[in-house]
């Protein structure tokens, strides 16, 4: 009579894993799309400053970075322990900033050039002297929109 055979009793059935690759691929695409590769290797140590009234840098292609901080341990014998400027992948001086900005501007689309933003990523203990020098150089290079990079501060009030 039994038309439907009872499936084998005992012994667990293996879960069908055929859709596992699909799930993993979905995750993979999500990360591929949302990822931004680290553009430069930092050669200076930066502990970011903290603030509360932050604005997000929306369009990455408009932003040029200037890093300021004490050189990494590996570079200290060569560059000392005073805060230094890093542009792209190398150490630089204040005098290099103008040509760096000009170059970065040339690489941008013409319609975006006026909207260029320079983000200054400086270590929180870095003295203002070097930052002021950078600001003066940026004024000379006519890059007037700047952004003092900082992280969100844990709310204290």
């Amino acid at each position: 009579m039994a038309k439907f055979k009872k499936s084998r009793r005992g012994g667990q059935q293996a879960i069908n894993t055929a859709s596992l690759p699909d799930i993993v691929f979905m995750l993979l695409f999500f990360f591929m799309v949302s990822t931004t590769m680290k553009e430069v290797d930092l050669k200076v140590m930066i502990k970011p400053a903290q603030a509360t009234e932050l604005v997000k840098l929306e369009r990455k292609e408009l932003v040029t970075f200037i890093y300021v901080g004490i050189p990494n341990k590996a570079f200290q014998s060569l560059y000392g322990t005073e805060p230094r400027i890093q542009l792209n992948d190398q150490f630089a001086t204040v005098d290099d900033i103008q040509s760096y900005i000009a170059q970065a501007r040339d690489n941008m689309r013409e319609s975006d050039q006026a909207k260029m933003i320079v983000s200054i990523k400086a270590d929180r203990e870095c003295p203002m002297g070097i930052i002021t020098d950078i600001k003066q150089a940026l004024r000379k290079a006519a890059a007037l929109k700047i952004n003092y990079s900082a992280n969100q501060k844990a709310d204290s009030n």
Partner: protein
Amino acid sequence: MAKRELQEVNAGSMADIAFLLLIFFLMTTTMDSDTGLARTLPPIVPEDEPPPPPIKERNVFAVLLNSQNQLLVEGEPMDISELKDAAKEFIENPERKDNLPEFKEIEVPLLGTVEVSKGVISLQSDRGTEYQAYLMVQNELARAYNELRQEFARKKFGKDYKDLDEDEMKAVRMVYPQKISEAEPKNVGGK
């Protein structure tokens, strides 16, 4: 010859490959978006240009920051926590005091004629000032302006400042323009 049955490709290792790629992207990814305080630098002044007319003292809110990260506001030492309220009082001048800034009337779209403070915040730091301290001062001043704009937006439009549309935001910004002037830094701390 008997036709052999088409063998299925074994897709079992597909998951492993995908996992490998996934882990690679997980490691290299930086999700953090960059944030910071946006500022505009003043354009460089040509040398032959005459100096700008002096600003009346009552219209200037002088903030000095020395190499020990100590604040001097309008000639008095001050803690950073009090700076925001002092700046707000300066900009708003609620009791129209004589030693606080004057007002001028300007035409603002959407709002008509509005009294706008002539006050300017002047910030001067030392070459030895710590970046964090300087940023905190900038942050507090920005907060003063943001709170004023927020209060104004609530009063006039009944909405939060961030919910206003573009024209309304522009109007509020005209009423409370962020006027922070940065003087050339001094080098007293000797660093």
